[in-house]
């Protein structure tokens, strides 16, 4: 009930940012433009979708879609237990969109994770630094065009010898 009302309201209120709404496997998906994500999610939160269950991203390199990257927000309404997925599309040339950390504190680390692995910039984020890869890591490894075996990072360490212990006796 709430979900249908909310979707209709959002489509009416934001005709330009909302690209389309689709349904897949019984779940409603709202597709929006990346730059308007904060206003759309503010309205959704005010409408009852108060809980950000997950935040992640998709690289549409081989999948097709409105843009190269889609940041997806999984919302939950605690009152009616209804769920809504919002996909915000950001282009490859300028992969940035507003941060929703001001709405949900949990978005802080999740946006850092998306930044770390996909290189998507969240404008207005208080501390947008890498969260999982080493601080001096270069590149964003969950992009589809990133080499699967990396760029020799895993071989780039000093070789430690045995010190005062010589090679172990062979017998």
């Amino acid at each position, binding site marked *: 009930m709430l979900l249908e009302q909310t979707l209709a309201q959002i489509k009416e209120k934001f005709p330009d940012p909302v690209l389309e709404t689709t349904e897949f496997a019984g779940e409603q998906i709202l597709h929006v433009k990346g730059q308007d994500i904060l206003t759309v999610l503010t309205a959704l939160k005010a409408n009852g979708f108060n809980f950000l269950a997950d935040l992640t991203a998709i690289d549409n390199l081989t999948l097709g879609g409105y843009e190269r990257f889609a940041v997806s927000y999984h919302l939950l309404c605690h009152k009616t237990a209804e769920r809504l997925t919002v996909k915000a599309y950001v282009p490859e040339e300028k992969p940035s969109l507003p941060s929703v950390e001001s709405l949900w504190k949990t978005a802080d680390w999740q946006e850092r994770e998306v930044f770390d692995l996909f290189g998507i910039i969240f404008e207005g984020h208080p501390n947008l630094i890498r969260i999982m*890869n080493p601080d001096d890591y270069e590149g964003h490894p969950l992009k589809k065009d990133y080499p699967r075996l990396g760029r020799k990072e895993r071989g780039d*360490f000093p070789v*430690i010898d*045995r010190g*005062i212990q010589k090679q172990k006796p062979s017998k």
Partner: protein
Amino acid sequence: MNHDDIKSNVLTTTLESAINWGRKNSLWPMPFGTACCGIEFMAVLAARTDIARFGAEAIRFSPRQSDLLIVAGRISIKMMPVLIRIYEQMPEPKWVISMGACASSGGVFDTYSVIQGIDQFIPVDVYVPGCPPRPEGVVESLMKIQNLIDKEKLSDYALSSSK
């Protein structure tokens, strides 16, 4: 002190074998558990296999107090500098067991972020296969380490042979 007392209270040996005997029967392991092998290692300590029987029950979580490093689990590129630092902090003599497929070869994780075998960067004495290995396998590796220590000579150490 009469002759019989000396016979029952004194034994003669070489310094080398006395040192090796002491070292091999009082290994103090430092577990570097990063994954499920670390959980399996807990079973090695528990009653059924009980490495206290081999004098190795004094698990130290400080590398400065241990002489056997047990690397249990996959090592990521972010963890490798930590592992190297811990290995270097251990006083010599020291030995290393690479426990399980991931520590030994990267296991199924052939990706940008997982080290394909810690022996590329630090010396390893015994490898334990398995995913994770059975506790019996780890006990076997401990006995192999003991055999290695038993065969050591004092001249194996650079400091003692440099004179």
